[in-house]
Structures are given as C-alpha cells and as structure tokens.
C-alpha cells in the first residue's frame, strides 16, 4: 500500500492507519490524510468526471479551491450521505465511504464521455439556440434529458440524522487565516489585552507553512517554530483558535459567519455532538489573512488527471508525505513552481523539465535546477498534455512572439505541475463591497477602499514570501490594536531561506490557440474552455457578467477560485480592453459551499419554531383533542369520542352546548391592558366605537381598522375602571394590534397618559356557553351575584371563582348565555377541571375551535381573517353600527370616504342558504349571478364560512358578494366542478335573530 509515500516527509501520523473505501475498494491512509492525499498515496489520480463533457479528472489542488475531485461521502452503517464533497479537504476516518460522481456505469468507463466527442455541439450557450423544435419536445424529451445529465452528485435521499449548532461570539479582533500573516497577527495581538479569535479552514494552523516549510524561522526549523507558535496561542487566555472553521461570509458591521466542522473527521462521534456549528462572530476589528490561491495555466488538455498546481504537489509532499507521481514536468510563469520542483526533486521525484514561458529566470533558480539535474526550457510553452485518464507526457515548443513555433518536442512524464502565479484571496473583503484596485505591475487585484473595520494582510495584499507575510501580519495587528485603543510589543519573526518569487501572468498559453488544438480549460468543473470565452465575446457578451452567465465560467462549486482571473484575462484580450475596465464578477457568500444544516442550526423538528400552548392544553391533549395551529399557538379543534370523525364530534359539541352547556379554552385570545387617565381617549382614537360613555363594569364589541380603512381586528373590550380597559384581540392579531397601538401612541399621541401591557399570558380564559352556563359557574362564585339582573349581558365582574381572583365577562360568541372567566394563567387548568366536574351534572361538553366557528356563524359573528381579508370595510361587513358616528376621528376613518370605498358594487357580507339544505358549500367557493357560469365567469364574491348547522338542521354559509346588501331575497349560483349549487341570499344571522338566548 501507499507506494507513493515518501519516508520522513509529511505531518500526518504514520503510526495510525485508517481505512476507508472509494467506489467500493478499500484503501488505507494515515491519520491526517485527506481522501485525495490518501488516494494519491495509493496511486489513484482519477477521482471524478467533469460536469458537461464527463472528462476524467483528478485533483488539481490540495485545498478548498478544488474543482475536480468531488466525491460522495457517507459513514459506514449510518448513511449520512453527502454529495460534492471535496476529496482534497475531507479528512479520512475509519469507516468513511466515498464514491465518485457523475459517471455511468463506472468512473473508469463512463458512457457520458460521448459528450466529450460532441463538444463542438455543446459550445457555450448552445442550449439557447436549439431544442425548440418541435415545441412539444421540450417538456417531454429535451428538458428531461438535459436535467438527467446535469447535476454532479446525487442528493441525499434520507433525512439527516445529525444535529447542527450555532453561536454568537463577540470579540475585539477576528483573524481569518492562520498562515504566516494570520499567525503573526495572532501572536502579536495575543500580547495585548484584546480578545482575539483566529480561524482557519484547515485542521491545523500554518497555512502555507504547512507545505512551504524549508525555511528557518527565528533559527528554528519551520515545523518546530510552528508547533511552538500553535502551543503559545493555545495557551493564551485571550485567544480562541478555531480550526476546520471557514469564514464563509462577511456581513454588515463586522459580522463574520464562520462554519466550523465538528465531527466529520471523527471515527466515533461523541454523544450529543453536533456535526457543524455556525459562529456569528461580531468583531470590533477584522484581519483578513486569507493568503493567495495559485492560478492554473490554460493550455491544451490542462485538465488531465496528473496535472496539478505546483503548490498542490508541494502540499501533498510536505504536508502529507505523498509524491504525486514519479516523473513530474513543470510548466510555469512564476518562480514558485521552481521551488515546488526542487522540493519534489529532493524527495526523489524525477523532474524531466521545467518549462517557463518567461525568457529569463534568476540565476539562483537556474543554479538550483542545474544542481538537481533538471532540464530548463525558458521561453517555452506547453502545447498539450498527452494521456487521457492520466497524463503521460507533454509537448512543448518555443514561445515565439506569442505564436506557436513548429519545433514541437515531446517529453514523457506521469505528472504535470503548473503555476500561473498567484491570486490574492479577497473574497471576504469583496463581500463588504470593498473596492478592488488593479495592480498593473503584478497583474493582480488588491484591496482598495474599505467599508468595514478590516485590515488585509499577507499574500492577500499581493505580498509574496514569508518574511513579508509575517511582517505584514504583525503590522496589521498593531494597526487593529491601535484602533481598539490597545497596544502590544510584538516579537519579530526572522525568516531564513525565504523563497520569494515573482512571475508574469498569462491568458491562454500561446501554444494552445488554433482551431484544431485540444481544448484548454479555464473552468475545470463546468468545462469552460478558452475558446468558449472568446466565442461568448464574439456573440456580443461584452460584460464580464454576461460572459460568466453565457459560459458558466466561475459558476461551479469552486466559484471561480481557479478560473476567474484566467477567464477575465482571456475575455479582456478578446474585447481588446484593459483588465480593470472589464472587471471581476461579484464575489458572494459563502466562501466555500456550506451545508443547509449549519445555517439552520438548532432549528430542527420541535425546535424549528415555537409552539405556544395554553395552561389548559395539557388537559386537551389528555382528552384526545385534535389540534390545529393558529399563528404560533396550537388550539384544540375538536374532541372526538371513540369512533367519531370531525363532523360527528362538532355536531355533538354544538348540539350539547346549545342544549345545555359547553366549555371552551379561549386563552389564546390576545389581551392588552390599557391603563391611564387618557385610556378612554386612546380607545376612542384606536377603535371605531365610542368608549367615553362605557361605564366601568361593562363591555363592548370593539372594531379596529388600519389607517387604510380596512378591518384589522376585533374583540370584546371591558372597562375595568375609569382608567383601565381589558382589551381582547384575535389570537393571531395580538402582537400586531399591540404594535399598532404602540406605534400610534408613541409617534402620534405621546401626550396621552396611557400605557399598554400585554396580558395575553397573564390570564387563562375559559368560556362557558349554553343555557346552563350559569348553573355550572355559580357554585364557584360566592362574592358576586351572577343573576341575569345583577350581571346582564355585556357586563363584567371582578370576583373570586373557586377562590381564584377572576375577571368574569358576560359575553357570548355562540349566541347562548355565556361567561368568559379569566383567572391567573397558572390556575387555568385547575379551574377547568373544577368546572368540568361540576358541568357533568348538566351534561357539559368541551368544544373546540371548529364548533366555536359553527356556532358563531349561526349567529352571523365574523371572524377577522375569515370573513375579512384586509380588503373589507366595516360597511362591507355590516358593522356600520360599530362606528362611533359622532367621533371626529379614529384610525381609518378618513379612508372610509375615499371614492372607491363608497361604491355600491363593493363586496358585502351576506348569508347564504343553499336551495338543497343538505349541501354544505365549500369555503372559498366562488359566487356568480344565477346562470352565469360560463368560463371565464364574472365572479361576484366567495363563500367565507360554511357549515352544517345542527341548530337549523341544514347548511348555512356566509359570503362576501358584490352589492350583497341589496341582494337580500335574491339568489346566486355557486358553480363547482361537476355541479352548480343555487343559494338564496339572506341576512347573516341564522339563529335566534332576536338574541333572546343571550339573555337567559
């Protein structure tokens, strides 16, 4: 096993072997390996297939910018499948199962590869130009085929068993990236009084020091210095280090989202451990030390397995102890690939050639190559890579004034290392809308104007080399500390053997042009080639945003980390336009793809959202209630007895309530205590009704409009004393109503001496309704007279009920004699049980919201939100009587006189009785003139409520109908699929129109 391991190299734990599988084959690696490093150590380069052409692909990087080596992962025996995971960042653990993607039947033999032969048909944007004929083929054939071939991995098919966490964290200084710049910043800030958080996406700190480790730092070997630095930071009380933690987005006011992976590297996951945690870190100052990403070169077949970034090869060697091949040719425009070549050569890899497009290279480099017996071809370029599933050689030729010379020579190799220079990582900085400035000399974008309190350090500022990075990190920390009013005396880091390089930036390599030349890839995953970008420009896509969207370059899962700059250069050249004038596309969060789960955090299942329950809810649950959800509350809808369905239960609940007595948990109604000397005046302004004359101890139905004149809420309101009202609102409206009241009070009428307090949850509210309601309640009330004379309809009393301090309203939402008893919430259930027991003497039944709805509809009482929908005025709803005629003003009054609010054709609330008394109309059914049922029909309105009425022994309905108030006695049609129902228009009160039962 592991034939490509290099003894004595790497930071992995070779004492600990780990096995995992890839496409069913078992492999062994070491603790600390990624899937990619372990597979490479086993000689496996072919790890995936590209999106469009299904070309064979291997890893091209060793980090989170990887576009090619995407795999599915799952945990043995437990599923937890996940697609599109980067083999280059997924750490191996015992029992990890990995699979390749986007292939059929196998990775090695993939039918989809046919696309690669037909590539010319699949030029950029081809689908916009075809698949249009015949028209019907799109839905039936073309699109389904396109969809089936698209996508990379498969979506998970099972519910995710894992949990996710989140946390807010406040800190003085957040440092993103723990390379030399980030480490220097952290080591400096550590010495101040500031709280510091250092995050890095890798499992260990070090950044480029993990692979560029030939230097000596303060006279210690690089690895040794790093270990000490890490230990120092770990021991510092003011520093918190998060590894496997990716800063995914830089949001407003220095809030950075950091997604931390907690368990995906563990063989055994501790109980209760979430899989990932989303930190929302709010920092006073931020240092972005994200480093730079090495840029690929664009040449023929540059996507073949075995073609890697030079720094990736260096990483596999120095961090993982893996050589990526036996014989690695190097193609570069930058010095850094030379160093990579030297490292590999020193580890025993044959370097047949370094091809550098530049005409010159430093003496040091050339000497280094010569010492190692490496052939150097300056002023040369690579024409193409040979081999299909693995590179087998390259052809090179001279760069001749930018065009290809005839003298092509072939060089055999199994690996190609490339470097097109480095791109500073400014993704997070760009999230803040900070500006980027084009640096002509180094041909990179650098940070310009800032919009947040942040500092960029290291390679992110285009500073190559460890010494510069250390110095810059330290400097950034001092700057940040001074902004925090802090200071520190930093220790310098002196670098010996620093291998700073320079280079030039190319677009497509000169050898790659021409019609028949093999394709040169810019965006590996999405198979965007240089010629696609040129084609897009020729098709008129002159904005880089158009180029992106037309070719999909930069839209793959690496979000252009490798491709954007090359794409931009090629487009700029085709446009004959300077690079900065063309500009970059927008960087958007997240920095690397991030699971939905980590955004959702704890919000899963029961914790997804609050479920509010009343104090009496537990009784309902024990008594087999069926619940419904109303805003955040859950309410008992009905209480079926064994064998009953909803209709039967509701019928019984209504019947028994009207015949004797029913009991209902009304605790969810919103309640607001309105208190102060100006309470009545305030009520006058907010509600349509007049309140000044309402005597303490009395209550009244209140109607509330929005300023636009439409009904917003209603409820019964009691005057407890001269300066105190007990307001009730609808269940769903409670918060809204209080907000609206506060808004008017604070912003328009601050002079009023009145205050509002939500008392919804202070009270449990039990409604007793029915001719025997008084009999049930009376035994529990000793300090008040409940008789009809002493306690008439629409009166209220504060008294003791069963010893609890209560507010009893004599009101009714059913049309029967009714009491609503409010007691302190914690006594709700106790009182409920007492009343229930007492009620048994009278055949009391418990009813739910459904029976309540039926009974109030029988009485023509509206439900806001059912009879109204935000477009209904008091007049429409037949509630003109609730408007205080003499009041000069109340919220919404002025709007009621706008022209369209007075039209006769407005939809108005009416009653409907179907001709067939057994037909219960469907709520929401539409209403037309008699006989006017042809489609499209002129609709007059709709059925808002419709029930079987046990009291009337027939169906009833309420409806909003155009000009409804003038239709009394007329008929309308309700066309339903298959049958049209006819109904007669009536008043809205179906039951006990005289209201006699209220006064029993």
């Amino acid at each position: 096993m592991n034939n490509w391991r290099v003894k004595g190299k790497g930071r992995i734990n070779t004492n600990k072997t780990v096995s995992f599988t890839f496409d069913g084959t078992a492999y062994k690696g070491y603790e600390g390996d990624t899937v990619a490093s372990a597979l490479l150590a086993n000689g496996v380069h072919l790890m995936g297939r590209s999106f469009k052409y299904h070309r064979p692909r291997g890893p091209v990087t060793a980090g989170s910018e990887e576009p090619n080596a995407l795999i599915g992962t799952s945990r043995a025996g437990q599923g937890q499948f996940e697609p599109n995971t980067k083999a280059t960042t997924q750490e191996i653990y015992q029992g990890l199962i990995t699979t390749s993607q986007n292939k059929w039947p196998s990775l090695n033999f993939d039918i989809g590869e046919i696309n690669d032969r037909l590539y010319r048909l699949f030029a950029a944007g081809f689908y916009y130009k075809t698949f249009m004929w015949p028209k019907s083929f799109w839905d039936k054939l073309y699109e389904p085929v396109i969809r089936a071939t698209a996508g990379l991995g498969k979506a998970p098919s099972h519910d995710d068993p894992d949990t996710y966490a989140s946390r807010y964290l406040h800190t003085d200084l957040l440092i993103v990236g723990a390379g030399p710049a980030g480490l220097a910043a952290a080591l400096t800030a550590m010495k101040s009084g500031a709280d510091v958080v250092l995050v890095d996406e890798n499992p260990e700190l070090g950044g480029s020091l993990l692979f560029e480790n030939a230097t000596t730092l303060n006279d210690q070997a690089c690895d040794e210095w790093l270990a000490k630095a890490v230990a120092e930071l770990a021991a510092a009380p003011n520093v918190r280090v998060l590894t496997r933690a990716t800063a995914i987005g830089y949001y407003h006011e220095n809030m950075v989202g950091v997604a931390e992976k907690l368990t995906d590297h563990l063989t055994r996951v501790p109980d209760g451990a979430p899989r990932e945690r989303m930190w929302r870190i709010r920092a006073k100052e931020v240092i972005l030390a994200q480093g730079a990403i090495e840029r690929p070169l664009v040449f023929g077949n540059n996507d073949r397995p075995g073609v890697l970034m030079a720094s990736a090869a260096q990483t596999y060697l120095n961090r993982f102890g893996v050589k990526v091949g036996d014989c690695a040719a190097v193609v570069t425009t930058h010095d850094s690939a030379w160093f990579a070549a030297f490292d590999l050569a020193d580890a025993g890899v044959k370097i047949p050639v370094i091809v550098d497009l530049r005409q010159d290279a430093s003496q040091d480099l050339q000497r280094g190559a010569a010492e190692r017996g490496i052939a150097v071809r300056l002023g040369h370029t690579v024409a193409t890579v040979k081999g299909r599933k693995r590179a087998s050689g390259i052809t090179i030729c001279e760069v001749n004034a930018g065009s290809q010379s005839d003298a092509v020579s072939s060089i055999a190799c199994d690996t190609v290392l490339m470097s097109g220079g480095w791109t500073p990582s400014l993704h997070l900085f760009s999230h803040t809308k900070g500006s980027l400035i084009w640096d002509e000399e180094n041909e990179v974008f650098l940070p310009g104007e800032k919009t947040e309190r942040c500092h960029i350090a290291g390679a992110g500022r285009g500073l190559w080399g460890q010494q510069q990075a250390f110095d810059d990190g330290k400097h950034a920390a001092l700057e940040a500390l001074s902004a925090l009013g802090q200071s520190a005396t930093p220790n310098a880091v002196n670098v010996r053997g620093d291998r700073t390089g320079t280079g030039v930036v190319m677009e497509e390599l000169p050898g790659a042009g021409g019609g028949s030349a093999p394709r040169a890839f810019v965006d590996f995953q999405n198979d965007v080639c240089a010629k696609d970008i040129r084609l897009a420009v020729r098709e008129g896509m002159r904005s880089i945003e158009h180029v992106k969207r037309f070719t999909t370059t930069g839209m793959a899962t690496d979000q252009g980390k490798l491709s954007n700059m090359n794409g931009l250069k090629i487009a700029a050249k085709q446009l004959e336009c300077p690079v900065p004038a063309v500009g970059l596309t927008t960087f958007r969060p997240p920095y690397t793809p991030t699971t939905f789960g980590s955004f959702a955090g704890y919000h899963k299942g029961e914790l997804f959202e609050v479920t509010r329950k009343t104090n009496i809810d537990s009784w309902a649950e024990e008594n087999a209630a069926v619940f419904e959800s109303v805003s955040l509350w859950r309410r008992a809808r009905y209480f079926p007895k064994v064998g009953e369905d909803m209709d039967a239960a509701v019928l019984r609940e209504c019947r028994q309530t009207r015949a004797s007595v029913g009991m209902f948990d009304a605790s969810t109604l919103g309640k607001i205590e309105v208190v102060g000397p100006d309470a009545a005046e305030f009520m006058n302004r907010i509600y349509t009704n007049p309140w000044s004359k309402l005597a303490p101890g009395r209550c009244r139905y209140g109607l509330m409009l929005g300023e636009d004149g439409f009904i917003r809420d209603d409820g019964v309101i009691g005057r407890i004393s001269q300066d105190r009202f007990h307001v009730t609102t609808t269940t769903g409206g409670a918060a809204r109503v209080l907000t609206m009241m506060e808004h008017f009070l604070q912003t328009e009428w601050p002079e009023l001496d009145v205050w509002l307090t939500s008392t919804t949850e202070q009270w449990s509210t039990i409604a007793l309704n029915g001719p025997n309601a008084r009999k049930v309640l009376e035994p529990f009330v000793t300090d008040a007279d409940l008789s009809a004379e002493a306690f008439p309809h629409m009166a209220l009393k504060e008294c003791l009920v069963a010893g609890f301090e209560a507010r009893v309203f004599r009101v009714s939402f059913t049309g029967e004699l009714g009491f609503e008893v409010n007691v302190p919430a914690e006594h709700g259930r106790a009182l409920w049980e007492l009343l229930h027991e007492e009620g048994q003497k009278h055949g009391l039944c418990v009813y739910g919201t459904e029976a309540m709805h039926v009974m109030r509809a029988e009485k023509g009482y509206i439900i806001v939100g059912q009879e109204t929908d935000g477009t209904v005025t008091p007049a429409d709803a037949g509630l003109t009587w609730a408007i205080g005629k003499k009041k000069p003003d109340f919220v919404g009054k002025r709007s009621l006189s706008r022209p369209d609010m007075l039209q006769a054709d407005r939809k108005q609330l009416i009653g409907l009785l179907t001709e067939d008394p057994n037909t219960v109309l469907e709520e929401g059914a539409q209403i037309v003139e008699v006989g006017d049922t042809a489609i499209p029909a002129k609709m007059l309105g709709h059925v808002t409520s419709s029930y079987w009425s046990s009291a009337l022994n027939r169906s009833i309905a309420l409806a909003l109908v155009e000009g409804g108030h003038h239709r009394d006695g007329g008929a309308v049609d309700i066309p339903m699929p298959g049958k049209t129902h006819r109904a007669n228009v009536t008043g809205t009160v179906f039951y006990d129109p005289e209201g006699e039962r209220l006064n029993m």
Partner: protein
Amino acid sequence: MLLIRCPYCAETLPELEFEYSGEAHIARPQNPSDEPDDQWKDYLFIRSNVRGEHAEQWRHTHGCGRYFNALRNTVSDKFITTYPMGETRPDINCAGEEKNEQLAR
C-alpha cells in the same frame, strides 16, 4: 445583521432586537377628515424611498420598546445617526451631487 444604536438605551445592539417601521417624519394630519383625497393618499402611501440618506423609524421592540428615528444610508446600509422620537431630522450634510452618483449605482 445591522447594528443599531438605541437613543434611549444608549447602547449599540443587534438588529434582531429591532423592528423597522418605515419612513420617518410623515406626520399624521391634525384633522384627517379635512384632508383632500390626494393628500390623504400621500400620507398613507407616498414614500420618498431615498437612495442615499433615509430618515426612518425603528422600534427597539425587544429592548426598551421605544420607537425612534434614524438616518441611514440605503446604499451602504450604514447608520449615520439615531435620535429620539419627536426630534427633528439632524442636519447632517452629505456630499453634493448625490443624486447622479446614486443613479450610477
């Protein structure tokens, strides 16, 4: 998530504690019944919707509960200042030519 300074609490706190409540300084007419339809419409619906410095109401709902006013730049989302309800809009001058610049995105 924005950070907002509540002028009553005198603390700068996360947006999650606050509710936005629309444009500021739109006073309810003294006698709505006297308003002509078009002016009542202005009060109800017309908003300046400024690209740039916007005077707006917020409520520290999950804090002191108070409504207050703020000046905020709607392009950068940055608060310029916040001030108690009832105070007039502070005269903080922003750079001239803002409109053209605003239009240019």
